[in-house]
């Protein structure tokens, strides 16, 4: 028998009992759609995480004070703080592979202004800071180099601070008092959401570094130095450069340990990507189970079908069909059924993804190879679960099959 004839017969037989065929294929339709949609959601989440990490400033390099070592006794991280604005100045003047550098002076306290008061952290930074972190302004402006040199009492508020202090009015031009020092609000940051470690990036006030050092934190030491590399591929070169500048700045002898630590975001990025990848695997395996259940559904219906069509098989055998003809017929029916279920499932998943992307906050992204895998898997399930019923049908003796009532 020619392949075309077999295929035609299989399709005809499937169409003869539409309702049963549809119900059989439904298992595969749902299974394939579930796999594709779940993986699409997982991939979408991964994409979002990657974008978010990129927006953290993928070129961000943070230099933090390292451990101190006094007489062989080593303290913990940051036990001995020797970072000053001189270090920042030296980096700014000597480093060639960087786009910007900013000190980070941490302070905190009760802010009074607008409708009430609020406790938050104040970061003293340079004019490069927004660019280093790839943050944006929602309104107003950022302070300039002149504001820093002049130790101007100006500040930029995070959106959460604005919500708490100025819920109904424009904060620009207003005055807030940070630990009783009056600051003029000149800008508001765009909402950023959480950091990778879960603290809010919006509950923050930025002010010129020198102002914060002088008026709020006191002393001359800064918490860390934030640098952005010229580009992401120059990241490690920039780190090496920074290392030598810092060693020089701190007058470390050869063989002496670094008293600082240089870190970039790649480990955070890796962890986050890994998390979403695990999520994708989890979702895909749950959906895969439903695909297998769909396959068992096909086997079930095909087995019932073999019993129900015993007479048909008998008739076919009596007019000269071989056992292999019957085997091929039933196997083809199972495969056609599961493949068409696969096609409908893929179309359905495209529809669902479209709805997800347009009507929810979630991002779903269908990779072409996932569609191919789901499709091949559906066909394989048709062969695997269709084989046993087909074998059973082919093994029938013509006279027994004909007598079957």
């Amino acid at each position, binding site marked *: *028998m020619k392949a075309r*004839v077999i295929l035609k*017969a299989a399709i005809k037989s499937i169409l*003869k009992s539409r309702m049963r065929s549809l119900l059989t294929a439904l298992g595969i339709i749902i299974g394939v759609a579930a796999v594709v949609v779940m993986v699409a959601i997982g991939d979408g989440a991964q994409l979002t995480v990657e974008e978010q990490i990129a927006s953290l400033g993928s070129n961000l390099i943070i230099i933090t004070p390292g451990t101190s070592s006094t007489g062989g006794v080593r303290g913990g991280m940051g036990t001995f703080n020797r970072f000053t604005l001189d270090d920042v100045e030296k980096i700014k003047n000597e480093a060639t592979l960087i786009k910007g550098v900013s000190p980070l002076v941490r302070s905190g306290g009760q802010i009074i202004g607008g409708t009430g008061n609020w406790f938050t952290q104040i970061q003293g930074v340079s004019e490069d800071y927004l660019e280093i972190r790839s943050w944006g302004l929602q309104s107003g402006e950022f302070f300039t180099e002149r504001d820093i040199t002049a130790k101007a009492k100006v500040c930029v508020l995070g959106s959460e601070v604005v919500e708490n202090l100025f819920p109904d009015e424009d904060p620009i031009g207003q005055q807030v008092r940070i630990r009783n020092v009056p600051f003029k609000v000149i800008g508001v940051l765009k909402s950023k959401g959480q950091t990778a470690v879960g603290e809010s990036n919006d509950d923050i006030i930025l002010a010129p570094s020198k102002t914060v050092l002088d008026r709020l934190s006191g002393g001359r030491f800064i918490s860390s130095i934030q640098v952005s590399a010229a580009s992401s591929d120059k990241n490690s070169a920039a780190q090496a450069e920074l290392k030598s500048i810092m060693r020089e700045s701190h007058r470390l002898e050869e063989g002496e340990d670094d008293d600082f630590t240089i870190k970039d975001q790649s480990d955070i990025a890796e962890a986050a990507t890994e998390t979403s990848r695990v999520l994708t695997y989890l979702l895909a395996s749950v959906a895969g189970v439903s695909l297998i259940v769909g396959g068992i559904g096909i086997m079930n219906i095909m087995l019932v079908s073999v019993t129900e069509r015993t*007479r*048909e098989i*008998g*008739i*076919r*055998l*009596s*007019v*000269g*069909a*071989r*056992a*292999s*003809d019957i085997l091929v017929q039933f196997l083809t029916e199972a495969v056609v059924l599961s493949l068409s279920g696969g096609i409908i499932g893929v179309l359905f998943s495209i529809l669902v993804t479209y709805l997800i992307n347009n009507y929810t906050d979630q991002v779903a992204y269908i990779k072409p190879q996932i569609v191919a895998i789901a499709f091949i898997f559906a066909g394989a399930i048709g062969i695997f679960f269709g084989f046993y019923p087909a074998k059973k049908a082919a093994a029938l*003796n*013509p*006279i027994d099959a*004909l007598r079957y009532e």
Partner: protein
Amino acid sequence: MNKEIIRTVELSKIYKVGEIEVPALKSVNLTINESEFVAIMGASGSGKSTLMNLLGCLDEPTDGEYFLDGVNTSKLIKNEYASIRNQKIGFVFQGFNLLSRTTALENVELPLMYDRSERIKDHHKRAIEALERVGLTDRMHHIPSQLSGGQQQRVAIARALVNNPSIILADEPTGNLDSVTSVEVFCLFQQLNAEGITIVMVTHERDFAMFAKRIIEMRDGKKVKDMMIKESMNAQHELERILNESIVYED
């Protein structure tokens, strides 16, 4: 002398029901030549249906040999058996055995689908010709449930004819039909036989057996009588007689 189509040598069949062996057919020797029209008669359990199934290669004998059109079928493997069924035998069943939800034409085409010799090129044309021979051209796109019993049996006969078999085997072909329709079917058989087609049928009604040219009687798995009918009944005349009677009756 006509060509020999069927020859059985000590053909036996024993069914096993659990531990018990039930002999259904005991050493039957039988020869049927080309263009014969044979009726096999017997009570139920006489072995006539078993003999029919063996002749139709639907079942395998326990013992003995069966030559069909010169081929020793006992030496064949399963797939060759299927080919024999496909090319040399046209089987007509009591229960018609048509594929439901499949048109008459497609039912008739079915044996051609399994014909590996591909001696017939145009399946469609061939199936229409077969339906013409049984006088059903106007109903060929109907499915069995839209056809009367007699029409269904004609479709089944067309299906038996379509592969140009050496022999047509009919197992109680009119068992499910009323008497007028039965006689119509025998008309068709006589007509086909007149065209030279060999027919072997099983029936348990002596009246119907008289339409054949030869009667073989079976009892307890053995052939007990084998006789030629000097003057067989003409089904066409019989049909006219019945129809006239019923008209009279209606008046």
